[in-house]
């Protein structure tokens, strides 16, 4: 099990840097994880995406489809890729404190 030190705190993460225990996640964690990906400040648009992913995870136990994120936030696909340069999976899902999705991501 790997650990990740950010902002003076230590988190247990998997090898890809996804939180091992999603329940330790909060807004502050999101901000710190985002910084690691080079996102210095989470804007309203970032938060909208993060919240939808997080809510979906808490309700259904997995990441939502990108369609759902677009539909709920009103953002265009390309905007989402720009907001999270690592993409919805390695970028947004990690910031939202989810475990790494399976498959080629």
């Amino acid at each position, binding site marked *: 099990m790997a650990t990740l030190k950010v902002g003076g705190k230590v988190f247990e993460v*998997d*090898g*890809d*840097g*996804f939180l091992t225990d999603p329940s330790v996640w909060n807004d502050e964690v999101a901000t710190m994880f985002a910084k690691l*990906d*080079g996102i210095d400040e989470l804007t309203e648009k970032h938060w909208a995406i993060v919240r939808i992913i997080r809510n979906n995870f808490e309700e259904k136990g*997995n*990441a939502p*489809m*990108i*369609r*759902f994120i*677009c*539909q709920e936030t009103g953002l265009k*696909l390309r905007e989402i890729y720009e907001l999270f*340069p*690592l*993409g*919805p*999976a*390695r970028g947004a899902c990690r910031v939202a404190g989810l475990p*790494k*999705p*399976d*498959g*080629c*991501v």
Partner: protein
Amino acid sequence: MQKIDKVKRDKALELLKSGSDSKLLTHLNACVRCGLCAGSCMFYIAHKQSKFIPAKKVDLVSSVYRRYCTSMGKIAPALVNAKDLDDSMAEEMVDLLFGSCTMCGRCVKHCSIGVDIAYIVRKGREMLSAMDMVPASLQATVDSALRTGNNMAIPTEEFVDTIKWMEEELIDEMGDNNARIPLDEPHKNVFYTLNPREPKFFPLSISAIAKIFYAAGENWTISSRFYDVTNYGFFNGNKEQATVIARNLYDEIHKLRGNVLVLGECGHGTRANRWEGPNYLQKSYDFDMTTAVELIADYIRQGRIKLDKTLNKELVTIHDPCNLVRNGGLLEEIRFVVKSAADNFTEMNPHGNENYCCGGGGGMLAMSEYNDRRLKIGEIKANQIRATGAKVVITPCHNCVDQLSQLNHTYKLGIKIKTIAELVADALVIEK
């Protein structure tokens, strides 16, 4: 606590009994440990550690073979480098065969003898799978596919919603209400397949191929239940599971009475279906199989689609997926399509059959356990890309796309990564 009991070990050893398998017998016995393969392997080049030499990986498997399957290994194991299959051996095998080989086969091509090193690594993975020692993250991806029919466990209704959404976008973009992404339609010429990461997170490649099919006037469909082109059973070494997954597509194309199974842009998925599939199922397929790349190439040759390559002006380069090029023979086909769709093209050095893996092959991308190694070997690819000066990297494999995207971010390459369909869709001239 002991991990391997006799039952497990016997199951693993059974896989080495080469009885009537000339290929297995050959590759288990041919390595001379000259060690010259080291310089052809990304893991060794990036880490400079002896344990990453490809011959070492072969030796793990063949030393066990010698110990249990040859007279010399039984009588005088030390003389012929024969080793017991115990816990520490099995753990070393997990670390090296799962954790430090993408089975790209670059060392195979350069081997002084001609040992199929990747084939032996896969045999070793089969042994580990027989002993329940597949890394958890990789097994989870296989389990998702077995449970739900796709490796990201996307529910059918959510998949359908995404396809409908893409269809609406297509109608808007084409300005034609007849533009379609047909789902579950029988008797179509093309039965198309996807990598689940497309509907889940990156659907632009679906709109791209839909646009190409629209332009070509193709008769096509996607199944809403079994559309997954991937088969991680090829990576985890469990042939029974690989067979179940391969059978999904086989049965579905029959159910929909499709004509040609078109494999979406996925390296290992193409390999697992086209080259391994009939062998998994132990029958010749009674339908044709081709890849998206070859299909698009045919459209271009037959004039079914018209491309204006000046629409893609930026300098592009190709990343050759190992399973499509070195292990799949598509070297020229990929170049034909890319050169037809891009104005400005340059090759990586080395490229084609000599190409380095993206670093995410062999299931590495799914195995969080080895993330650091994966990114480190990826630096070789990152440097290759940077040296070309290209702004866009084209690769017909979604797995490569994901690894390259991460390399792009980690090594600050400032490039765009596109599939072939995305490149071609951008160059399409659609006559109204």
